[in-house]
């Protein structure tokens, strides 16, 4: 058996091992490298959209994902909430995925633990609320277009909609200044664009997983999305822009090495394929 034939028949556990090492080593403390990276136009636009909001503006943050997508989306959520809280913006949280509001609580706790934010002594119901999950996918967005309260009569803590000071003057989308959608699939960014942005002229920014981001590009170029964060790179860029460095910046290095390993194996696989094919011919 020639070298290339051996390469074609390589035990996949070697590939698993190399991928594992490439993912693990960059996140070890001794291997931490401070990499400088540029910011894409779509991430910059999203940040600029948030930056334009005056203090006291209401931002609806929708958590439409579950734990499997958290490695990419949670750093975006963390950076987003930290930025909003530190700039005195009011935050309304909701989710079209059942696990969304729970993911939101994780980010809220992380944000509130930041010393600068903790010093603000933010109050639930006044500075932020978590409306929880509502079943119904895009119909929930449509219902919110006429009345938030009908879609979310209570928050996750059991408080009535009218009992929450932050929501007293929030009837529908016209009372919200920005919508920040964190999405991993359906229902998600596409539905928010089609219902909230197209129909109710909501200012919408999206944070997507790398797999989903290509689907959102037509909306970005069409102006229906203010900006877009795509995958781990988008998360790292957003951390850089908000100046709240978190996991994404570190994970980017892991992803870079993993991509390198995958590309390396694909090249080797193709070379081996063509060499052995030529031999057979």
């Amino acid at each position, binding site marked *: 058996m020639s070298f290339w034939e051996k390469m074609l028949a*390589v035990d996949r556990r070697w*590939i698993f091992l190399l991928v594992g090492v490439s*993912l693990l080593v960059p996140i070890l403390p001794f291997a931490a490298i401070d990499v400088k990276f540029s910011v894409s136009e779509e991430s910059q636009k999203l940040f600029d959209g948030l930056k334009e909001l005056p203090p006291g503006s209401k931002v609806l943050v929708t958590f439409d994902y579950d*734990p499997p997508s958290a490695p990419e989306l949670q750093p975006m959520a963390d950076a987003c909430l930290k930025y909003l809280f530190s700039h005195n913006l009011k935050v309304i949280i909701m989710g079209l995925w059942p696990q969304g509001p729970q993911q939101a609580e994780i980010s809220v706790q992380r944000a509130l633990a930041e010393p600068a934010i903790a010093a603000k002594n933010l109050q639930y119901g006044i500075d932020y609320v978590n409306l929880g999950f509502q079943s119904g996918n895009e119909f929930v967005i449509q219902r919110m277009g006429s009345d938030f309260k009908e879609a979310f009569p209570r928050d996750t803590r059991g408080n009535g909609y009218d009992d929450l000071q932050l929501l007293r003057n929030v009837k529908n989308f016209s009372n919200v200044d920005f919508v920040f959608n964190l999405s991993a699939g359906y229902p998600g960014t596409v539905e928010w664009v089609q219902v909230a942005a197209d129909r109710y002229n909501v200012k919408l920014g999206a944070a997507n997983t790398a797999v989903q981001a290509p689907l959102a590009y*037509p909306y970005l170029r069409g102006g229906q999305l203010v900006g877009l964060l*795509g995958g781990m790179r988008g998360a790292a860029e957003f951390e850089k822009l908000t100046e709240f460095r978190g996991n994404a910046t570190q994970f980017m290095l892991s992803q870079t090495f*993993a*991509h390198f390993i995958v590309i390396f194996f694909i090249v080797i*696989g193709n070379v081996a394929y063509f060499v052995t094919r030529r031999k057979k011919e």
Partner: protein
Amino acid sequence: MRREIPLIITAVVGIVFVVQYFIPHTPFNRFQELFSDWFFIIAACAIWLGALNLLKLSIISIQKKRRDWQYAVIIVVSWFTMAIAGILGGRDFQTPGTGFTWLYDNIYTPLSATMFAILAFFVASASYRAFRARNIQATLLLVAGFLVMMGRVLFDDLLFGSIGEEGIKPLSEISDFIMNYPNLAGQRAIMIGIALGTVSTALRIILGIERSYLGGGD
């Protein structure tokens, strides 16, 4: 009547939703709100139905000792554990410090993330074995995939980051070009195709021509 009533409901609701989009005024907006509220109730019931069905099938699997019935035991135990933790937590069971949140953060989240993370290993292995430049189309896909994969991570910054004041980024620029032009054109074409297909299917359903959703092979 078992077929006529669902057909009438579908037609009325479908027509109201189409009309209210173009005429968002009374009475169409009121009907739309009413139907949306009904949809919430049906969707919430569907979640319950799904959960109960999962429980029922798992219990049957255990009783009949079907293949891999041991996994069904885990499902049943997990089902009751999460349900009981949620009920004991009261109305604010999702807030920090409750048993439900502890289970969610420390068991559900790591398990879900692990399942998804395993994909990275299988994708690498599958790409090695299956991603071949067998013809022009496959080669184009392969090259585009390479460039986007390299442009979306830190290759540029690691290789050329120290060149020039802000570094040069050819891979990122090529990747952006692919995403903004060929990808965008392809996505738009697919979206327009899907939209046309959706409109025609919706019309067939509203008019009662398409009845397969009723079941029964009609």
